[in-house]
């Protein structure tokens, strides 16, 4: 692949350009929004917003990456960061643990796929007597996998053996043919499929979810949030951010190639892979109000699976940010 720039590298570059532009409009008061984001799909719209200066010349966006939960916790606790992109489990847990944080929108849906190299494999029932590789025990993909397995009448441990690993290791094992059945998330799915043509997506969890529950709701995965403090201090900017973010999500879906280039530049993700993955990444903007039904379903399922995953209880409505 081609040379990549690192994330912070990119953020610094942007800062300087923004700073020079600030000198043009000295009159208004400049403000910096500090974001904590993982190198994953919800970050793509932010990159677009930074490039297009969607929030105007006075608003500087500073990106910090979080990859381990510790970093995110520290970001929420140190008071240094204003907004975050995070999985919906994490935001619920943090909220339930008393962190002053709001979910502004849900932006990622689905993204979990069942990958296999077994040409015979058709339904969950075919897993009987097999080993399934799942990234991260007690993560939503695990909860969903177990949910689908039980719906198919299979018992974990006796009918199906589940092996957990980190998503990198699971991907590697699938790609190298050491594992035949695995659960993966985008954008690694796209990367994985391009590395081994025996592999195929057997089904997306989204479709399974709709099939099993007989609905047409989707599975919400991740969203964007802000601290209560930031919202209180910058109500207008928050609304503006929300609007711009929605636009940026659309832009990413409409311009996967350009989004891929941005991802490579700032996140170090390969442009081609991101471009190919964007249609599968389930990027869609919904306010918490609009996504209420899906959120409730998800949280209910996770709560029944393991309450600790969402911080012990289904989050109250206070979690959801409402512009009005």
């Amino acid at each position: 692949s081609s040379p990549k720039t690192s994330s912070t590298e990119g953020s610094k570059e942007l800062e300087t350009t923004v700073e020079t532009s600030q000198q043009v409009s000295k009159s208004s008061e400049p403000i910096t929004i500090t974001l904590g984001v993982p190198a994953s799909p919800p970050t793509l719209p932010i990159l677009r917003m930074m490039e297009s200066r969607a929030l105007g010349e006075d608003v500087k966006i500073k990106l910090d990456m979080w990859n381990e939960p510790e970093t995110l916790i520290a970001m929420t606790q140190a008071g240094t960061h204003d907004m975050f992109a995070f999985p919906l489990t994490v935001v619920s847990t943090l909220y339930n643990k008393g962190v002053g944080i709001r979910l502004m929108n849900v932006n990622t849906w689905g993204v979990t796929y069942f990958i296999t190299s077994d040409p015979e494999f058709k339904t969950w029932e075919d897993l009987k007597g097999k080993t399934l590789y799942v990234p991260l025990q007690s993560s939503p993909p695990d909860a969903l996998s177990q949910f689908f397995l039980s719906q198919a009448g299979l018992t974990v441990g006796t009918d199906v053996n589940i092996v957990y690993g980190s998503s990198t290791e699971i991907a590697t094992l699938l790609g190298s043919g050491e594992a035949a059945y695995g659960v993966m998330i985008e954008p690694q799915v796209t990367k994985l499929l391009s590395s081994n043509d025996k592999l195929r997506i057997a089904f997306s969890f989204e479709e399974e979810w709709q099939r099993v529950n007989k609905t047409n709701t989707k599975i919400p995965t991740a969203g964007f949030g802000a601290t209560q403090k930031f919202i209180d201090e910058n109500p207008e900017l928050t609304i503006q951010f929300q609007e711009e973010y929605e636009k940026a999500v659309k832009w990413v879906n409409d311009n996967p190639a350009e989004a891929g280039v941005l991802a490579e530049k700032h996140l170090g993700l390969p442009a081609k892979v991101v471009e190919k993955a964007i249609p599968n990444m389930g990027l869609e903007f919904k306010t918490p109000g609009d996504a209420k039904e899906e959120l409730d379903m998800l949280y209910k399922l996770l709560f029944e699976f393991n309450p600790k995953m969402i911080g012990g209880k289904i989050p109250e409505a206070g979690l959801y940010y409402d512009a009005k």
Partner: protein
Amino acid sequence: MMRNKSWEKPSGWDFLLAAGIILALWQFLTLFFPPLVLPSIKSVVIKLKEILTTPVFYKMIGLTVERMAIGLTSGVLVGLFLGILMGGVGRFRRLLMPMISIMQTVPPVSWVVLALVWFGFNGRPVMFIIVVSTVPVIAISVCEGFKHIDSRLLQMARLYHFSRSKTMRHVIFPSIAPFFQSAFRIALGSGWKIAVMGEVLTTSDGIGGMIKQARLNIEPESIIAWSAIIVGLFYLSDLLIDFCFRERRKTHA
């Protein structure tokens, strides 16, 4: 040797004092940091109680203990063997040192996939990780110890035609013992941490698996409670090994 009274085992009082200082510091820091950053002593104690009264957790502890015991023992034996080879024969040192350095400097994430494919998801990669991090510590120390063997005693052994094994037992081992001991102490201490990190990396059971889950569920008090259990295990193992060494010394001296 400088063996005066102050070299005896920690007196109980000083130990309690040390524990007190640590707890006081902790308590003090909780005044400044929110519980997600630094959980309160109380919440950790509650969690600890929960862990220590739940049978399934004993199984997890047992798994880690087993991995640690096997990994450390093999690592120490291999390290000792390689250290003696390297210390005794310059050629071996020049050949093996680069490999030892690679073992030591390459982060586990680089070869953990290989270890998983090789050993499976059954916890054996954890042992492998412990071995890989123990071997260099022991081997390098032992090899360094060789440099400081009194060559006059080696000459004596040669003159009196000590067999190779006799020279080993009576000249070389006692000379490198202090180096081995300090290395062993280091390997034992870090071993527990490495066992847990290996578990975080390659399995979902054992203490590492519990910590991984606690991380995922954002339960810092649980992470700290498990860490306290690791520290406790370290102390137990330290006492045990001290006891064994002392028994040995008694019968051999």
